Every structure is written in C-alpha cells, then in structure tokens.
C-alpha cells in the first residue's frame, strides 16, 4: 500500500518536472524561465524524493534522502538567484524602465 503511494508520488513529481522543462523550453523571456526553474523544478525534486523514500521502505535510506532533500532545498533556489542577479547586473532587461537604468 505504502509502495503504491510512493509510485504515485514519483509519477506526480515527474509530471511536475515535465511541466517545468516544457515551460523552460517554450516561455518567451528569460526571467520567466528563472522563476520556473527555481520553483516548479524544486517542487518536482521534493515530490520525487518523498516518493523514493516511501518506495524504499527502510529508515536509513529515508534519513539519507532527507539529508539530500535539505541540501538541495538550500542550494537550488540560491543558484538560480545567483544566475538572475548576474544577468540583471550585466544589463539584461526585458521590460522598459523609466528613470535611471
């Protein structure tokens, strides 16, 4: 029963990742893609890792996966923030701003 719930969670996570990759490929501008990468893809990672925890069925594997999850929750959005900050500082704009550019 728990195993079936794990498989369902993995399927939902893969669907999240597929939506994220679809939008990264077909969205029109750069900053929209940054938001998608930082939010939807992290959501897919969380769901897949919880599903793998349920499928594995042992406490030690689940704890290790929890450590991995915590690490990735810290580093993933930070990396996308760094990329977006780098693009903004280099003068990449998508909307016209008035006043000081």
């Amino acid at each position: 029963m728990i195993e079936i719930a794990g498989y369902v969670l993995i399927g939902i996570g893969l669907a999240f990742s597929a939506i994220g990759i679809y939008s990264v490929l077909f969205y029109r501008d750069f900053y929209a893609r940054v938001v998608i990468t930082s939010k939807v893809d992290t959501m897919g990672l969380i769901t897949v890792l919880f599903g793998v925890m349920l499928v594995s069925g042992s406490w030690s594997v689940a704890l290790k996966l929890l450590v991995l999850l915590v690490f990735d929750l810290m580093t993933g959005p930070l990396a996308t923030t760094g990329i977006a900050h780098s693009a903004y500082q280099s003068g990449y704009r998508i909307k016209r701003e008035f006043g000081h550019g």
Partner: protein
Amino acid sequence: MSLLVYAMVALTVLLIASLVRIIIGPTIWDRLLGMNLVTTKIVMAIAVLAVLMERSFLIDVAIVYSLLGFIASILIARFIEKKGQV
C-alpha cells in the same frame, strides 16, 4: 521494482530535453539555467537508481553532486558578472 525502470527512462528523456535549452539558449545565462536543470535531474536519477539497485551509498554521491553543481553554477555566474575577475 520494475516501475522504477520506467521512472529512470522518463528522467533520462527529461534530461535530454533540458539539454536542448543548453544548446539553443541565446545568452549564456540560459545555458546556466539548463545546467541547473540537468543537475537536478541527475540527483533525482541517482536517488531512483539507489533504490533500484538497493545500494544506499549512492545517495551520498548524490549529496556531493548537488553541492558540486551549485558550486559550478555560482562560480560561472559570478565570473560573468564581474567580467572575468572572479
């Protein structure tokens, strides 16, 4: 356990789809975004592989991977922002 094999195949297809953004991306930051996506997909694939092969030490390798991908993308982004001065 055979359902996890399909999950591996799906993750591989997603990884190759995110390689497309690395190849066509018009600016260098789009390519960095694609690299971030590939790192996430590989971490997921290692977690699935660890349960599929019943080898739990593979998850330690996944932690190393996520840290290395983070360091690489921050390093390249910082390098571009400072115009070559790291």
